[in-house]
C-alpha cells in the first residue's frame, strides 16, 4: 500500500537517518551501558531530543475520554491508538503542549494492532515529529515514551519515561518504558528522535508494556487515512484463508496452513513467503489480515508467494472462519 503520499513522507526523513553521526559507537547503541559515563551520555541524548520532539505531542479529547497522540505531518495528521478514536469520523479535539485546543476528526485505524489516525481540521502549519522508516527499531534499542496520562496538565507537562525495546513482533512492540492509561496513543521515540511506535496497552507487569509499531501505520497508510477502521468483527465475517504467519526479514512467512482451510487445500506450506494478494504488495501481516477480511468468504483471490527462491502464483477460493 505504499503510495505517493507515503513515499514523499519517507523521503523527508531518510536523510537524517543515514548521517554519519549515527554510526559512532554511542552509549545507547551498546548492548548495555557499562558505567555512569555511558548513562550520562544516554541522559544527555534524551534531554537534547526532548525539546525537539515535545512540541508535536498532543492530548486528545473527546466527549467520552482522553488520550495522547503525535502530529506527524505539517498539515496536522495525528497518529494515536484505535481505542482512543473508537470510530471513524468522530469530532475530537487536540491540545498542544501550550494548552491550546484545536478541532480534529478521527480517520481510520485497526483494532488488530490498535493503530489509529486523526486529523486536525483547522488549517495551519503544525509542529510535527518524524516517523522512523520501516524496520528501523530493533530489540534492545533505547527509547522514550511521551504522553498525557490522566489528561492534559500544564503544571506537570508532558510525561517522559525511558526504556528499551524488549520485544518487537508482528503487530506488537513491547518496551519497559512505563505506561499509564491516558498515555494511550502517545508516541514512543527512538534515540534519533523518530517515532517508532504508539502506546497501546499496559501489561500487568509495569515493565512490559505494549505499543503499535510504526510499521502498522506505514503498511496500511492509505487505508487508515481514508477513514477506514478495521474491526475484529470484520475479521470474523470476512473471507478466511487459514494461514498462520509471522513477520521475518524476508517478509510475511507461513508458519502453518490450518487443517481443512482454503490455505491448506491450495498447497501453501510452511516457509512460503507471501508477496502479494490481487496485485497488492504485502508489507506486513496485519495488511494481509485486513485485505483478506475485506473479501467475502466465497471470493477468489490471486496470491503470489515465494518458495525456494522462486515466485509462484495461485488462485484460492476463500472460506468461512471456523466458529469456536
Amino acid at each position, binding site marked *: 500500500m505504499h503510495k505517493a503520499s507515503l513515499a514523499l513522507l519517507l523521503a523527508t526523513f531518510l536523510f537524517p537517518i543515514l548521517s554519519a553521526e549515527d554510526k559512532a559507537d554511542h552509549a545507547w547503541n551498546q548492548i548495555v551501558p557499562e558505567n555512569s559515563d555511558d548513562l550520562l551520555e544516554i*541522559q544527555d541524548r534524551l534531554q537534547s531530543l526532548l525539546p525537539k520532539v515535545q512540541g508535536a505531542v498532543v492530548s486528545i479529547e473527546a466527549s467520552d475520554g482522553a488520550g495522547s497522540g503525535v502530529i506527524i505531518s505539517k498539515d496536522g495528521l495525528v497518529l494515536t491508538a484505535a481505542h482512543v478514536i473508537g470510530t471513524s469520523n468522530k469530532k475530537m479535539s487536540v491540545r498542544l503542549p501550550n494548552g491550546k485546543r484545536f478541532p480534529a476528526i478521527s480517520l481510520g485505524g485497526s483494532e488488530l494492532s490498535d493503530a489509529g489516525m486523526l486529523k486536525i481540521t483547522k488549517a495551519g502549519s503544525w509542529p510535527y515529529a518524524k516517523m522512523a522508516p520501516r524496520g528501523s527499531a530493533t530489540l534492545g534499542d533505547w527509547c522514550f515514551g511521551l504522553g498525557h496520562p490522566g489528561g492534559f496538565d500544564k503544571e506537570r507537562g508532558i510525561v517522559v519515561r*525511558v526504556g*528499551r525495546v524488549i520485544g518487537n513482533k508482528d503487530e506488537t512492540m513491547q518496551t519497559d518504558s512505563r505506561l499509564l492509561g491516558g498515555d494511550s496513543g502517545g508516541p514512543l521515540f527512538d534515540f534519533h528522535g523518530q517515532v517508532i511506535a504508539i502506546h497501546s496497552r499496559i501489561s500487568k507487569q509495569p515493565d512490559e508494556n505494549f505499543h503499535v509499531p510504526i510499521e502498522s501505520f506505514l503498511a496500511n497508510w492509505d487505508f487508515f487515512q481514508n477513514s477506514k477502521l478495521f474491526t475484529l468483527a470484520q475479521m470474523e465475517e470476512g473471507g478466511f484463508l487459514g494461514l498462520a504467519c509471522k513477520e521475518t526479514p524476508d517478509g510475511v512467512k507461513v508458519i502453518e496452513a490450518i487443517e481443512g482451510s482454503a490455505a491448506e487445500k491450495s498447497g501453501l506450506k510452511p516457509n512460503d513467503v507471501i508477496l502479494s494478494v490481487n496485485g497488492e504488495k504485502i508489507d506486513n501481516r496485519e495488511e494481509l489480515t485486513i485485505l483478506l477480511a475485506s473479501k467475502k468468504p466465497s471470493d477468489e483471490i490471486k496470491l503470489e508467494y515465494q518458495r525456494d527462491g522462486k515466485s509462484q502464483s495461485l488462485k484460492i477460493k476463500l472460506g468461512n472462519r471456523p466458529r469456536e
Partner: protein
Amino acid sequence: MKVAVLISLLLSWFSSQPQDKNNTLLLAEKFRLNGVSTQKAFGHAQKQALSTTVRLIRNDKLIAMGGIVDSRGYVLTKASDCVGAREAETSDGKTYRLKIKKRDEKTDLALYQLLSNDEVFPVLKWGEGNSTRTGSWVLSSYSMLKEIRAGVTSGKPREIGREGGVMGVILGAEGDDIGGVRISEVVPQAAAYKAGIQEGDVITKADGRRVKKRDQVVKIVGRNDPGDVVRIEVKRDSDLKTYNVTLGHRSVTFDLFNRNLQMSGPVSKRKDNFPMILQHDLPLPKNSMGGPLFNLEGECIGFNIARVDRVTIYALPESQVRNTLSKFLGK
C-alpha cells in the same frame, strides 16, 4: 478484549519458542532498564543508595524505607507510612531497634534513630534536587536492599495541592423541591457508608449549615482533612437523622472507580498537599516509600514521599527535606 486475548496468545507463543542465537524474541532481563547489568552501570550511585537506605519494619513486615541523614543513626522517612515501626535493617543485614524522634505533618516526614552502641553510620550526601531537569536519571534502593531501581524524572517539579477529606458519596439531584442534595450513590466501605448514610438520603445540613446545592456540600466537607469528623443531617423518607462522618482520603475512597489504579497495586494514602515534588517513574511498591532518591552522582536529591500510581512517584526535593531536618535537629 479479543485483542488482549489474541496478543496474550501470541506472546505466550513467542516466549515458548527456543531462543535462536541471532533471533532473540524478547530482550534478556539483565539488559532491561532495571536489569542487573544496567544496575551495575550505576556503580558508585548504586553503592551510595544501598548503604544509606534502611528498611523499616513492623511485625516482621516492611512498612517503609528510610535514609540515614546523620552518622548517629538518624533516619528520615515518610511519617504516615511508618507508624509503629520498631525495627530497622541495613543493607549489610544488621538490625536495630528504632526510636521515633520527630514528626512533621506538612511534609509528612518523620525522624527516627537507629539505636546502637555509638556505631558510626554511613550518611547520604546531599545534592541539589530542585534543579533536576526532566529526563534525568534517578535511582533508589529496592525493597530488599539488594538491588536498586532506576528511571528518570518524568514531569516538572511542582506543588501538589490539597485534596481534602471525602465522605465517599456521589451527589445527585439538588434544589428546593428536593429539600437539599440527594445522595445517588454510597461507596461501599467508605466514610459515609460506615457512618450509616444510605443511597437516596437527602442531605439537609452539613456541619450545622443548611445546604441546598452540591457545591455547598463539597465546599463544607472539603475544607476538612481526612480523619476529621463532619456532622451530616439527612432526610430519609420523612425522618431527619444526623450522622457523624469520619472523612476518608480521596485517593483511597475513589480509587475503586479508577481503572488505572486497579492495575496499580496499593498506592500511598497521602499523596496530596506537598509544597513541591519531583515526579519520577521508579517501580517501587507502596511499602518502599520514605527512602532517599539519588542522582547519577550518588547524591540524595529527595525523599520518596508518595506512590501515586503504577508509574508515578512523588519525591520531596532535598531543599524541603533539609529544611524539615534542620527543624527536627533544632538548628
